[in-house]
């Protein structure tokens, strides 16, 4: 199973969990899976067009999904996925 690290800003939607275990597949599938259990996550991570929000970074094994095919980025079974607010750095 893959692991998803949930940022503090979203933990209220997932009963305070820091990490969730998910089946994997693609980022799209993982978001669907989490959203089914904890409605609201997709709304916060995706923009109104259903694309990853410019204000949130999603990473698979530390790599930005924008370099891995976006929501179709593959998530291997043992991968670590991170969701990180984008407004940082510099």
């Amino acid at each position, binding site marked *: 199973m893959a692991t998803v*690290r949930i*940022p*503090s*800003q979203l933990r209220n939607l997932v009963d305070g969990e820091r990490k969730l275990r998910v089946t994997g597949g693609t980022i799209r599938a993982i978001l669907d899976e989490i959203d089914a259990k904890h409605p609201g996550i997709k709304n*916060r991570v995706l923009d109104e067009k259903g694309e990853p*929000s*410019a*204000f*949130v*970074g999603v*990473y698979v094994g*530390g790599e*930005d999904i*924008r*370099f891995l095919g976006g929501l179709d980025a593959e998530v291997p079974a043992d991968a670590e996925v*991170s969701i*990180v*607010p*984008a*407004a*940082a*750095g*510099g």
Partner: protein
Amino acid sequence: MSKVLGLKCKECGEVYATNGIHVCELCFGPLEVALDYDHIRSVISREKIENGPISLWRYVDLLPVESGWDSDVRVGFTPLQYAPRLGAAIGLKNLYVKNDSVNPTYSFKDRPVAIAVTKARELGYTVFACASTGNLASAVAAAGVKAEMETYVFLPSDVEAGKITNAAVYGANLIAVNGTYDQLNRLCSEIADEEEWAFCNINVRPYYAEGSKTLAFETVEQLGWRAPDHVVVPIASGALYTKIAQGFEEMVTVGLIDGQSVRVSGAQAAGCGPVAAAFAAGEDAFEPVRQPETVAKSLAIGNPADGNYSLEVARRTGGVIESVTDAETVEGIKLLAATEGIFTEAAGGVTIATLRKLAANGAIGEDEVTVAYVTGNGLKTQEAVDGHVSVTMTIQPTIGSFEDALEDKQEAVLAQAAR
């Protein structure tokens, strides 16, 4: 604090208390400090500023802290140098260089850090940290150690030797990360989420960023209380660029100068120019750069947090965001040194090379009062000019050796001229 209204989401406008947070709970938009300009207008004046400390703290009324915790350290109020020789070389008649390479740790980063360390102490943090492209590490290490905070600075392991040495000397925890800046920035965001630390450019970023407004305030005061027509500012995350623009606007808002628009132009390296590329393509949003390749390592941010806001500022103010090659950057470093006697780091080379490009293509008018922001010191990035500068002659300690060498040199010059 009456001058600060709170932290406000730049996207949805939600207002939060002034704690150590940087993103909106509702939309992940960045938070920024909301100031009470009516209040500030009633307490601020040119005379008060002119009688204030010779540092950025003379503008404390426009900053989100009560007073600097350590105002004996002289951050800011750096020279605004009239630059006629550089101007003549590139075709500008009213050119100035803001030399911010002479701050306590030799870059503009001492400004945002002065605000961040003060605010971190006000908020009760005991650990101070940052994710640095090189210069911020030194500024945070120096300020954090002096403030007797436990200090952690993270930087890419492949930055220039001078940046590592400078950051290491203060005795802070210096963590070199094998990866790009964007990778270590993501790592630090995850650490900041777990630890109760004041991470300068993460959870206390809204306060930190405010410090860079002082570059605009000083420019206005040093020009005799007038704004320049055009400025050129280097862009990595875009925080400096957007905050300089905001600084000029605030001077008008609080009544220190009459309304005047400043064209704010930006400078990036071609090997890591996501904002310049989006500007050229007419896009509202940049595409991130995965693997930056540039001599200007301090500007090597492929995923700039304020990239899209920078595009907005350029279009709103009538500025341009351009990029330059490594070769042009090195020429920029040498040109500034040879004309104005200032040795800047690679980011300054990018700025001067961009200035030159914008002057040459007419984006900057020759009569415009123009200010180029030179934000870091050349001694920290000596690798950038390796092989491009050298000793003129090496001699024995005798007058004969000197005279022979001088003769050889003159012959070489004549031979060159004859060709």
